[in-house]
């Protein structure tokens, strides 16, 4: 418990997570504001569907890539500034230390998503109660809430694992950015040629599916169906696999 608290303190006592939380909040609020403006301008007397509520909350997905960067920066900062040796001095048995760090990043990711979702819910309800009267709710908005929270927590840990594996801040962050915004897109295409279902194994595709649910996801090759539980399982599998490699790499690099 002490180690978990200390890891959370480490995250909260530097600027990067706070700055990225601010950036994510700005992106989410702007996205929500645009949607509200569209609804307001499209209908003189605005109405609200569960799909629109879900779309409004989906702005919180901005947290996912930024939380991934927080994970990677957090892990590599320890190496870059040589603060990792203090962890080892305090806890020569490495496994509790590594486990505490993963737990802390999971919790931080959840908190990160919760703050954004809370802000969006506040905006949604404030606006809707004044302009529409009620907020229609259903399984889709609920799935968005839970999906964003789960994915943000998982991807914070994935970022941590990537940082632990590559141990270089610039390399880890560049690789994550390239993967999220380019590489996976290139991999999905040949995978789809082999078997369309294989694309669902890709981490970014899995986030889309998790948030969209059982709906069809359009690819350039065709359309495939993802199940919510299936995609949650895929994200979890990525998280566990990369964390295992990250732990192995950390333990291997600690003591020579």
């Amino acid at each position, binding site marked *: 418990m*002490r*180690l978990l*608290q*200390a890891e959370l*303190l*480490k995250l909260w*006592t*530097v*600027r*990067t997570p706070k700055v990225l939380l601010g950036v994510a909040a700005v992106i989410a609020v702007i996205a929500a504001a645009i949607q509200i403006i569209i609804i307001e301008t499209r209908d003189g007397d605005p109405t609200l569907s569960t799909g629109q509520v879900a779309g409004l909350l989906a702005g919180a997905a901005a947290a996912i890539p930024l939380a991934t960067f927080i994970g990677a920066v957090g892990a590599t*900062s320890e190496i870059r*500034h*040589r*603060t990792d*040796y*203090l*962890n*080892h*001095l*305090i*806890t*020569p*048995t490495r496994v509790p230390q590594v486990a505490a760090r993963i737990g802390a990043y999971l919790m931080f990711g959840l908190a990160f998503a919760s703050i954004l979702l809370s802000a969006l819910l506040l905006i949604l309800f404030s606006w809707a109660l004044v302009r529409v009267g009620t907020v229609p709710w259903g399984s889709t908005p609920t799935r968005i809430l839970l999906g964003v929270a789960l994915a943000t927590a998982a991807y914070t840990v994935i970022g941590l694992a990537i940082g632990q594996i590559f141990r270089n801040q610039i390399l880890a962050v560049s690789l994550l950015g390239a993967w999220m915004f380019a590489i996976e897109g290139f991999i999905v295409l040949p995978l789809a040629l082999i078997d369309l279902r294989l694309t669902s194994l890709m981490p970014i595709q899995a986030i889309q599916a998790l948030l969209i649910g059982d709906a069809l996801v359009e690819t350039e090759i065709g359309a495939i169906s993802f199940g919510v539980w299936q995609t949650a399982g895929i994200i979890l599998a990525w998280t566990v696999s990369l964390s295992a490699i990250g732990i192995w790499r950390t333990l291997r690099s*600690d*003591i*020579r």
Partner: protein
Amino acid sequence: MTTVAIDRLTKRFGQIEAVSDLSFSAKPGRVTAFLGPNGSGKTTTLRMLVGLADPTSGTATIDGRRYCEFEQPFHTVGVLLDGGFHPGRRARDHLRILATSVGVGNDRIDAALEFGEIGYAASRRVGGFSTGMKQRLGLAAAMLTDPPVLILDEPLNGLDPEGIQWLRQTLRNLADEGRTVLLSSHVLAETEQIADDVVIISGGKLRVEASMNELTGRLTPSVRVRTPQAAEAGKALIDAGHVVAAGDGPDDFIVEAAASEVGELLGRAGIVLHELTPQQKRLESLYFQLVDPAAPPPDDPGLAPATTSPEGS
């Protein structure tokens, strides 16, 4: 009473033997200086001692146990190694994280800040600290749990004269309280004033382990002579078998002998003396003899194995 013991410690990195069959100890109530040139294996030895590197063979123990065998090692051993600060984190937060990890309260954070005399900068980010301030914060962190053993890697680096004086007095006080203080350094002049015992290594091998008194006592005494009859005085001393070296001016020179012996000899020769000053014995001169890479390691590195009395305390 906690003793640090290095016993036949060897560390190889591939074909390179960084530390070779090294043995020495640091005792409670003593400040032990661990000296050697850059790359001599000091930091590797200290890293093995605190479990950050695995020895190829041999043992490094604290109170008879390896570092990793302590349930809460930070409560026994305070460690200062190079680095260890996130530049974006405030000094107090740095200590708060450590205090949380080891389970000590905020009162210890305040005490550590006070110990390091760094309280005035507690709310500042470490990135804006000078090297000396970082050293003070590192020492404060090492003292967070008030441990009986301190292992400090180059604590003098970056300290200004006031900082060095502070550290000298602080380490003296800590040793006088019965703590074991092991510090590595290459700042010889200051180390000479701080340490009770000295361990010198070179090329990963032990060159000498002795008390400071024994070590400096081994140096040949020398005296500065100033006289208007420098030529005659020099000749008399050389004729008596002493080694004479030039001084700063035409009227003075340095002779390797005790002041009393020089005074009596020149007095008998009827030479007028204007000055006769014993020269400070310098650890530095012996150090350079011992770490000379061309010099073979001594068969018996202990001038007298460090079974010293606390007279140097």
